[in-house]
């Protein structure tokens, strides 16, 4: 168990034709002892490369990675005392579950055989695969293989776990179960864990903190709620949350924002936050938009329902300012699943001033995040 530090870590790949591609650009992350950090981002953002550099499977172009205060840049993977779980599970197909789990201890320690056998049996029991020890991977279901892969990592009792999209090959239901189980397991073992995923739900639900990468650049590191409610920039705001945040490009006119379809009056604090930026992007999360049959007010707009997606607990409503257009521009709002609303209906959508985010249209940097004063999560975020 140890803290893991990434200090200005950069990875540059050189292609055959001499072109250089920066896969990871100057990433700094401090991961505390026993912390569960989720690295998340769209595919090709450099999250797997980062993980592979920590594992030692990829060289580090510049910067430093240290584990427990010791620089590990030059250490071969075998000497880093790190265990990794792969997306494909990467089990050894010709070995039984027991042999798969013993392999690491046999290769990396001087532990006597009987001690290895005890460790393997104990870990297998803990993972609920005690009765599968003599089977080959091909005879196991995907979920069982996943457990073996986890067990193989756990049995080595490493300083840190690295997980590369370990749940993405499971079906949705099993994935949800394993998500909870993994969290519980990690908390029990207290091993520093770096978990890579492209799935923002996994990131939100599993991590103590999440680190969001885009195009090799670290966008934000923070608790899930920080990233959700106080995003550093428009990318984070759009990536975290499902359905994602609505964005409206707006122009600044004195105390108001003017868009193609509507105008939005700013509060004094918001005006100050925007400063002298001319063009801003207004962001608002779907669940913050209220939808009423009728009404009015300074931040209420007459819109039409384009499509309703019922989810049972809630409805995702696609709203539009343009009626009767074939493929209208829409924004989404989520409303209670018990409310009945129909496509084509005229409704009034309110964008409450205390829940809007404002981003610089040029740089995407957050100028103003939603107010949390009236909510219960305030304490967690300070």
């Amino acid at each position, binding site marked *: 168990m140890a803290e893991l530090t990434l200090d200005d870590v950069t990875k540059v790949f050189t292609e055959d034709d001499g072109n250089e591609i920066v896969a990871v650009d100057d990433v700094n992350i401090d991961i505390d002892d026993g912390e569960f950090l989720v690295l998340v981002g769209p595919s090709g953002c450099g999250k797997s490369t980062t993980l592979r550099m920590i594992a030692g499977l990829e060289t580090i172009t510049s910067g430093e990675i240290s584990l427990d205060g010791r620089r590990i840049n030059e250490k071969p993977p075998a000497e880093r005392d790190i265990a*990794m779980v*792969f997306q494909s599970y*990467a089990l*050894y197909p010709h070995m039984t579950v027991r042999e798969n789990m013993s392999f690491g201890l046999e*290769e990396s320690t001087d532990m006597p055989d009987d001690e290895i056998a005890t460790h393997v049996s104990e870990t297998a029991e803990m993972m609920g695969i005690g009765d599968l020890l003599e089977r080959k991977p091909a005879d196991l279901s995907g979920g069982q293989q996943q457990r073996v892969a986890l067990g*193989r990592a756990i049995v080595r009792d490493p300083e840190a776990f690295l997980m590369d999209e370990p749940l993405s090959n499971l079906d949705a239901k099993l994935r949800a179960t394993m998500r909870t189980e993994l969290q519980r397991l990690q908390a029990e073992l207290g091993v520093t864990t770096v978990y890579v995923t492209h799935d923002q739900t996994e990131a939100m639900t599993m991590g103590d903190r999440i680190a969001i990468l885009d195009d090799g650049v670290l966008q934000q590191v923070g608790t899930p709620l920080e990233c959700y409610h106080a995003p550093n920039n428009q990318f984070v705001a759009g990536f975290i949350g499902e359905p994602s945040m609505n964005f409206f490009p707006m122009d600044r006119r004195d105390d108001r924002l003017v868009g193609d379809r509507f105008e939005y009056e700013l509060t004094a604090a918001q005006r100050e936050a925007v400063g002298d930026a001319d063009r801003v992007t207004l962001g608002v999360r779907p669940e913050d938009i209220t939808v009423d049959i009728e009404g009015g007010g300074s931040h209420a707009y007459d819109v039409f329902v384009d499509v309703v997606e019922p989810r049972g607990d809630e409805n995702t409503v696609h709203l539009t300012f343009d009626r009767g257009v074939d493929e209208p521009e829409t924004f989404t709002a989520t409303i209670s699943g018990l409310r009945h609303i129909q496509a084509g209906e005229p409704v009034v959508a309110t964008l409450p001033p205390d829940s809007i985010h404002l981003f610089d249209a040029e740089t995407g940097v957050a100028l103003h995040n939603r107010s949390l004063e009236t909510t219960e999560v305030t304490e967690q975020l300070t």
Partner: protein
Amino acid sequence: MSFGTSTDEETETGPGYPLRRIVLYVTLAAMAAFYLIPIETGIMTSLTNPSSYSGQFPYLPPLEPLLSGTGEFSLQPWQNAVDLLGQGLVNSAILVIPATILSGLLGSMAAYGLTTVSWRGQIAVYVTFVAGIFIPYQAVLVPLTQFWYNVVPLRTAFQPVTVLPFVQGYHWKLVALIVTHTAYGLPICTLLFRAHYKKLSDEMIEAARLDGASIYRIYRRIILPLSVPMFAVVFIYQFTQIWNDLLFALTIIQFGDASVVTQELVGLGVSQSGTNFPLRMAGALVAALPTLLVYVLFGEKFAKGVAA
């Protein structure tokens, strides 16, 4: 099924034996006959009296029993063939078994080093391996003789080994042939193993590296056990190639006690009084038996390897 009035369509969908199936079986039977008749002919010929050989169709059972006058069959030509080829069979075995194992093992190691382990310049090395496949045998015959007889003093170097039991002075020629065949088998073996190793999961090898296994241990504990089907393919291929080779044997062994079975077979049953075809046929079948045996032994694994 009605009498000849049924159309093709009815035949296919109707009960009984659809026409398509009959055609299939007839074709299969014809193909089986096509492949088996030469062998059957060989067996029949090997049982025929040399004097009555030319008087009948070779694929029919002998009209006149082998031991004329007694009315009995005899496996005398087979017995004679084994006696006459004995030395050659032993020499071939001494040659083929080590050469096959060596070329398979070295090919697998080379392919592992050139595929799974990544290092700078490996493609260039691999290309030289592949180029080896295209060097015509004829082009190297003279250099090969020069190499083993004049450049490498293998004959004298081999002398001290002859004190060991069963080792004869002439065995140095077989050693030379083993090395030659191993070297010539390497490119194709490497190619076959490389194709196999490219399909292995990179993540699995990386998992083994993280598990603390060295390059050698990964080969020994992961790659080698997963190569078994490909070894069956390579063993069958190399065994047949080397066992059947005559050109290199003629070049390196030339003549003498070290002659392998293919060399002995050339002169078997040939004399001034004519050609003893039954003896030659029996000899050919005896010489072919070991390759057949290897197919039987590795056949199942071979099928797996080819399908993989």
